[in-house]
């Protein structure tokens, strides 16, 4: 089990489009089967193995359930790694990021900050949906050039996720 990739662990072929409900169900079954409590009286080695397996199943589930981490993992399986020290991005994309950050910073001063936050959230989530659709198409085609494109999309999605987390922090502060 420890040698299987995360998709195999869940009895699936590697793909971006997944049925999340069936993964969640399979996750609960697997967790039950290897739960360390079941091995409380088992020999040391078996007990250790069950702990390792439970951790691996948990990690697999956390990775597969969200589009961003699932896409990163799929790229890895295809031998495409993301270099986090690579700071070059499309200028237009960075410009837009700057503007979105500025809009977020200005929310506090708005007469109705919650309405401004909601508008901004709609914008960000709309862009995220577009990126996820792009990823779905790229992984669906499976061509190498499409996968290289998916790498860029994953990087962009990481910026959007960060932005969304900051928006959520501000939202909590304002409540």
């Amino acid at each position, binding site marked *: 089990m420890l040698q299987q990739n995360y998709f195999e662990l869940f009895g699936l072929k590697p793909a971006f489009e997944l049925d999340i409900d069936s993964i969640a169900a399979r996750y609960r079954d697997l967790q039950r089967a290897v739960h360390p409590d079941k091995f409380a009286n088992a020999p040391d080695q078996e007990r250790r193995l069950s702990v390792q397996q439970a951790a691996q199943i948990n990690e697999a589930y956390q990775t597969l359930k969200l589009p961003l981490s699932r896409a990163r993992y799929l790229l890895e399986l295809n031998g495409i790694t*993301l270099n*986090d*020290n*690579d*700071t*070059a*991005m499309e*200028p237009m*994309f*960075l*410009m837009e*990021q*700057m503007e979105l*950050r500025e809009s977020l*910073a200005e929310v506090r001063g708005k007469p109705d900050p919650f309405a401004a936050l909601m508008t901004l959230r709609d914008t960000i989530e709309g862009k995220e949906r577009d990126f996820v659709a792009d990823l779905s198409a790229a992984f669906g085609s499976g061509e190498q050039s499409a996968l290289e494109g998916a790498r860029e999309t994953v*990087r*962009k999605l*990481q*910026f959007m*996720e*960060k*932005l969304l987390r900051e928006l959520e922090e501000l939202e909590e502060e304002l409540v």
Partner: protein
Amino acid sequence: MAYSDKVMDHYENPRNVGNFDKDEKGVGTGMVGAPACGDVMRLQIKVNEQGVIEDACFKTYGCGSAIASSSLVTEWVKGKTLDEAATIKNSDIAEELALPPVKIHCSVLAEDAIKAAITDYKNKQ
């Protein structure tokens, strides 16, 4: 995580925050981003006819280390020639600010930003 005193100083009193008109001929603009943490940095230089950086400014959306790294670079490049400014290394920034290993990428971002600003300026001449 605890920030060094120097990072705190730049974070609380960032130097040279702002922006220049990016369409001006004497202005070079560098925009970079760190996908790992979602930080975005814009660093601008104003260059005179002798090729000396007269003024610099930045705007960074990111953690304290990223803000401090860009703030420090704008201080460092003022009065330098383009060639001198291009020799700034991320390791110099990291050392000056006593950045921990997990924050080294913030200094990489600042080095890439000044390099990008210099390239942008040169392309416009």
